[in-house]
């Protein structure tokens, strides 16, 4: 019997502590009111009743009266007038007497309000007559079992809210998810608007020049193209939540299905390209940083520059020309059955990434090598290899990994050029193809997909960042 009581007590204390903390933050306080409306209403009524019972109508008015009558108000006013006079004299200002009056009034209002608020606070702290602040009333209710149960029943969203704001890591995560939500909506609106105002007409593009006006009209009716901008936009947004963005104009397949069908291919190539780039770029970059200003380094920088500068379509075409047509080693186009057909697209896709990651690795490592703690590591007697690998690289990698994560997210959006060159049925080529009609549902689906993927990857990268860097971890933990 005793242990059960303790358990409940501990929980009520916990709840009261977190409630109080949340209440003191102005924006969170609003959340508490919104999510726990019914419960807060009851509290408010009880608060008013208590106020009436203890006879203390309004503390603030009482304090204000005190302030005015004690002579403090007069003293303050004359002090402010005096100071203004001094200031005008000292700074040689040109101020009319009405301006002066207004200024003094404004200052008086500010200062007197502040002093009255201080008195109100002091009153509550020393209060013994039972008049209570709103917060105190709430806490009193929550300390009774009945009140607690009532609050759980009526205001359970408020508790969810309280949990979210009280746990820093959860709080952080939910913040990011909320942002992601707004990003997706924002992207949808912008892209949809652009497509809506696009000059090309999907009906004529799909049905062809020979189409009769009736056919065109049918098409437009079928796909809701005659509805207003807002209705169409609304439908699209609704579709995001129901995971059904409609059917493509051409082919009439559900766009969501198409995207899901093409996704694995894009994912596979992206992963391979990423793996290849990182495997080559990281060691090369580290080595270039260690052997800075040597021949290797100069060569390295040159190759990296080339890698970034070469346009992928050119690279792709040259590869096909060389390795497929002239040498016959590799197939020219992608086919899901032939593993060899993956090699060239992977290399082409990975080249740009490889070059930029290598350069970043080099500069990040260079920066880290010049830090004081590397000197400490050497002074300990560690071999140069251990100093670099154990102390320099982990610190240098932190910014690099985040950039790799972001690039990865970008690549998942589909590498349209590479996909076109190698005839890969990925998402990139899909969006590009559909763009020209414009096959609005398909393009929207593609764009929304990219927005979602990028946002998720961003959140993941942020979490990864705090996982790798203990300084960020502490900052997140402490809010």
């Amino acid at each position: 019997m005793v242990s059960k009581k303790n358990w409940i007590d501990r929980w009520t204390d916990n709840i009261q502590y977190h409630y109080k903390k949340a209440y003191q933050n102005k924006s969170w306080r609003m959340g508490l009111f919104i999510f726990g409306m019914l419960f807060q209403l009851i509290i408010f009524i009880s608060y008013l009743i208590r106020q009436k019972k203890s006879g203390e109508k309004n503390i603030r008015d009482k304090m204000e009266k005190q302030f005015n009558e004690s002579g403090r108000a007069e003293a303050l006013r004359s002090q402010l007038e005096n100071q203004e006079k001094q200031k005008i004299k000292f700074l040689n200002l040109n101020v009319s007497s009405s301006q002066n009056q207004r200024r003094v009034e404004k200052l008086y209002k500010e200062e007197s309000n502040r002093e009255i608020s201080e008195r109100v606070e002091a009153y509550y702290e020393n209060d013994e007559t039972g008049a209570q602040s709103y917060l105190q009333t709430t806490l009193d209710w929550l300390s009774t079992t009945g009140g607690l149960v009532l609050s759980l029943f009526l205001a359970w969203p408020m508790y969810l809210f309280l949990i979210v704001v009280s746990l820093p890591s959860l709080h952080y995560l939910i913040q990011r998810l909320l942002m992601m939500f707004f990003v997706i909506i924002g992207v949808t609106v912008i892209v949809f608007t652009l497509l809506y105002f696009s000059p090309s007409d999907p009906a004529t593009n799909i049905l062809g020049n020979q189409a009769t006006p009736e056919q065109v009209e049918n098409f437009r009716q079928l796909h809701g193209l005659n509805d207003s901008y807002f209705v169409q936009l609304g439908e699209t947004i609704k579709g995001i939540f129901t995971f059904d963005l409609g059917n493509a104009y051409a082919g009439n397949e559900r766009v969501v299905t198409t995207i899901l069908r093409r996704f694995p291919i894009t994912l596979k190539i992206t992963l391979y390209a990423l793996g290849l780039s990182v495997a080559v770029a990281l060691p090369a970059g580290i080595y270039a940083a260690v052997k800075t200003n040597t021949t290797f380094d100069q060569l390295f920088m040159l190759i990296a520059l080339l890698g970034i500068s070469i346009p992928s379509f050119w690279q792709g075409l040259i590869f096909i020309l060389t390795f497929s047509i002239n040498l016959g080693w590799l197939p020219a186009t992608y086919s899901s059955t032939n593993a060899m057909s993956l090699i060239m697209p992977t290399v082409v896709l990975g080249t740009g990434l490889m070059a930029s990651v290598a350069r970043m690795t080099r500069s990040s490592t260079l920066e880290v090598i010049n830090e004081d703690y590397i000197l400490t590591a050497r002074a300990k007697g560690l071999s140069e290899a251990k100093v670099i690998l154990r102390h320099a690289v982990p610190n240098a990698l932190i910014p690099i990994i985040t950039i790799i994560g972001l690039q990865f997210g970008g690549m998942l959006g589909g590498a349209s050029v590479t996909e076109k060159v190698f005839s890969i049925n990925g998402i990139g080529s899909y969006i590009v193809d559909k763009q020209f009609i414009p096959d609005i549902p398909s393009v929207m689906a593609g764009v929304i997909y990219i927005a979602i993927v990028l946002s998720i990857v961003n959140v993941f990268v942020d979490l990864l960042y705090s996982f790798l860097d203990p300084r960020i971890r502490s900052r997140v933990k402490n809010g």
Partner: protein
Amino acid sequence: MENLLTVNNLSVSFSTELDEQQVVSDLSFSIKKGETLGLVGESGSGKSVTARSIMQLLSSNAYIHPESSITYEGTELLNLTQKELRSIRGKDISMIFQDPMTSLNPTMSIGKQIVEILRLHEKISKKDAERRTKEIMTDVGISNVDFRFTQYAHEFSGGMRQRMMIAMALACSPSIIIADEPTTALDVTIQAQILELLKDIQKKYGTAIILITHDFGVVANMCDRVMVMRHGELVESGETTEIFENPQHDYTKMLLNAIPNLYKDKTEKEKEKLKEIHSGERDALVRVSQLEKKFPYGRGETIKAVNNLNFDIYRGETLGLVGESGSGKTTTGRTLLRLHEASAGEIVYEGFDLNHLNKNELKSMRKHIQMIFQDPYASLNPRMKVIDLIGEALDTHGLVKNKKERTDRVLELLDLVGLDASFVERFPHEFSGGQRQRIGIARALAVNPEFIVLDEPLSSLDASIQAQIVELLESLQEKLKLTYLFIAHDLAMVKQISDRVAVMHEGRIVELADSEELFSNPIHPYTKKLLSAIPIPDPSIEAMKKNKKDTEEELQNYQGTEFKEVEPHHWVSC
């Protein structure tokens, strides 16, 4: 006793793209077992380079001349292979560096960094290494070692980080520890603790210490023998007491003279000034009452960096504001200038509250109240020439009518601060630290202010330059009838330049008195702690200083928030 380490004819040069610069020339010295050798010099003297040469930790563009020789226990270190050198580093000879924050790997736990050095030099299992690490951590004064073991550098305070560095240096029981300015980045009370720790270690383990520093007080406190270096050359060396009592070389004499003398008497003029302040003949230029500044801290909480401050600054006086890092002194200075907005309280200047000024009025006030900053390099726009740095102030307030007037005025100001007229067309990076600070002073004076807040203006300057700038500030005060608020953490410096001194601790003023009175008769336990922690550049006094026990209990009695005039013109918070 034999020499443990002998350095002979050490010469080191650095090669840049353009030329070769010799930073150490023909240096010879030695150190015996258990001895503490001090290596003193100003910036650029080559003392750090010398220290790093011993273990050959120099950068790749450094070149040790072939005639140099460094022998440790008979072995010529400069002939060893990298592998052999590595077995000496950290094991026989180890180093402690100046800034413990940047000298520790931020992403590796502290415990791991010590375990690493243990397992590197000794055949020891991971578990044993962890145990040993925790023992060493306790040895250097870290409490709660099990928890601290897993923490990271940024979760420690400055003093504790330096203790961890010392723990790391001690781990394999070296015979020599080279400490490169180990306490320069620390508060004065923490510095005292770290120096005590080093002394304890020496007593316990018989370690020899090469202590590099620019602070003669530290030298007097710690070193048996001293070497003075300048421009890479050995200027003078000998027993510490000898050097202090009987310096031979002019440079040594100059350095010793530049140390602010804590026991110098006030001049007649200064005594007159204080009398006028006490009698009420001088009026107060600035009256601060119940000043508060809060900052958000963590989630939803606030911290009061400045907490209920009450003090006056009288016309023409220099009020010193002293405190350690985190005491709130810099925040106070900035709040006075409304660079921060006060959370509560008044700052009454010439009869009106500065907090009530609107933007335009505040701009006018900038002609009357100015600030001189700590880091003269960071506070001067590197892309502006001197004439513009100073001229900008003149332009902003419309103080000059045409270009000629502007140039004339700038030249006038440069002359006032002792700089040559040819400097007007140069950029900040072309000047030394002392010269830059003079430019900063000229800039502050351009608008003819009456009140100047100086925020640690001397902290980043060498001792000899500090003395010159202090002289300049004092003469300017007299000439231009200026009032100063001098913020610093160096008590000795503050005493010299201030008429009265206020001591700040955790956002409050704990004691306020005439500077001489404060130093000879400190009342508040924190002030006493601060004063006793200052290393006095006088070996005989340092030798007499006994280990002061923590005044924690005494501190308890002074926790109140009243600021009482305990003795005439001597206020204490209690």
